[in-house]
């Protein structure tokens, strides 16, 4: 059984065989998603999310910076802006844009459908 000793109100008496784990405080902020290179940047309380993205080489063309969010060490998440307090050990996530259908993509789909229809018509004509 694992117990967080910070959650206990009273003293905890350890027994033989118990293990006391003191995790090291992290010293980084991770940057993942639509950035040039997923990275683990050194933490500084004065840095903004843009500084961390800069550490990751910047954004890719696919990045949707307006929807960038922060994954906190406690599992919660929130959208980030330039004023957001970024704690040590958190993860800055830049999601990719979910593209609307581009003209090229649309043309490709239409031409394929038309091609299939034409093939079908030719086949039916041949059978007739």
């Amino acid at each position, binding site marked *: 059984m694992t117990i967080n000793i*910070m959650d206990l109100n009273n003293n905890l008496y350890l027994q033989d065989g118990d293990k006391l784990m003191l995790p090291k405080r992290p010293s980084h902020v991770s940057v993942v998603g639509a950035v040039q290179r997923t990275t683990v940047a050194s933490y500084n309380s004065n840095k903004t999310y843009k500084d961390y993205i800069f550490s990751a080489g910047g954004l890719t063309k696919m990045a949707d910076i307006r929807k960038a969010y922060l994954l906190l060490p406690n599992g919660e998440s929130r959208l980030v*802006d330039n*004023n*957001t*307090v970024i*704690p040590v050990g958190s993860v800055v996530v830049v999601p990719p844009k979910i593209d609307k259908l581009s003209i090229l993509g649309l043309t490709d789909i239409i031409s394929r459908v038309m091609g299939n229809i034409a093939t079908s018509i030719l086949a039916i004509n041949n059978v007739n």
Partner: protein
Amino acid sequence: MLPMSVHAREINQISTDSSKSPVENIDQFFIQNSQKKNVIWAPKVKGKSKYTFSIPKNAYLISKNHADASDLFYLSEQTDSGLKFQSNKSKNIDIVISENNSNLILSQSILSNINAGLFLKNKEKISFGVNLNKDVIISKNALGNFGVEQAKDEYMVFNAKFVKLSNNENSELYGNINHKFKSNHLNVGIGNTWFDIANQFDLTLGIQEQGKKVESEVYATFGDETTKLQIGFDQIKNNSNMNMFFNLKFENTLNKENFGTNIIFSSKDSVFSLRNLSLKSFRKKNLDKLWKKYMNYN
């Protein structure tokens, strides 16, 4: 004899009226109240507060040990306590410069929420006088300000302003009334501002009646809390011309806590709507900025 009970309420809130920083006040609080497990801090904006932080002692001591308060922000409970007055001993200089109408206003808080001051106006002629105004908290999300101006050799002018922040804090509704006693002079304005449109600007839509002229305006506000550029259009009813205007605002240029210096340059003739009340800085979204500003251990 009737039985009587006394309810004592524990006050865990630190004072904001001293010259000490919040960190120094929190330290002092935990030294004087070693049994307390948390402390309440209400960050102050222009003599008022809305949200409070309940800061746990254990987390505070650990964060102080690491000289980093960023994780403490998320470990502190944030509560909307509604608008409240905090101690305010501020002095203000407001300068409005427009083509035909410029003002210089010097004011000082004389009581907790009453301001008194002097003004110099240059509209048609130069006038000098005194003003007195008082902030009033109307509700949890609404603020009002009532005041009078008395210029030399002129009738007294009554000013009233209000602003109400929407429940989701994405917009605010504002209004202004300006009336000169013993005259037909009445200006009334009302409008709404939507914040952070596309994370880029605020959009304001307003309508006002000045001297029987009804004027509508729409403008976008770019910039941060210290420097704002407003660009928009206004149109007088029954007049087909739509005019473009701009306002450039520098707020708290000296960056002093108790000495506000605000300068506005405007291309508009009327300065009636230039000094609206706003509750934008009291939103939950602004807590990060306040935390970074005040909670540092250096």
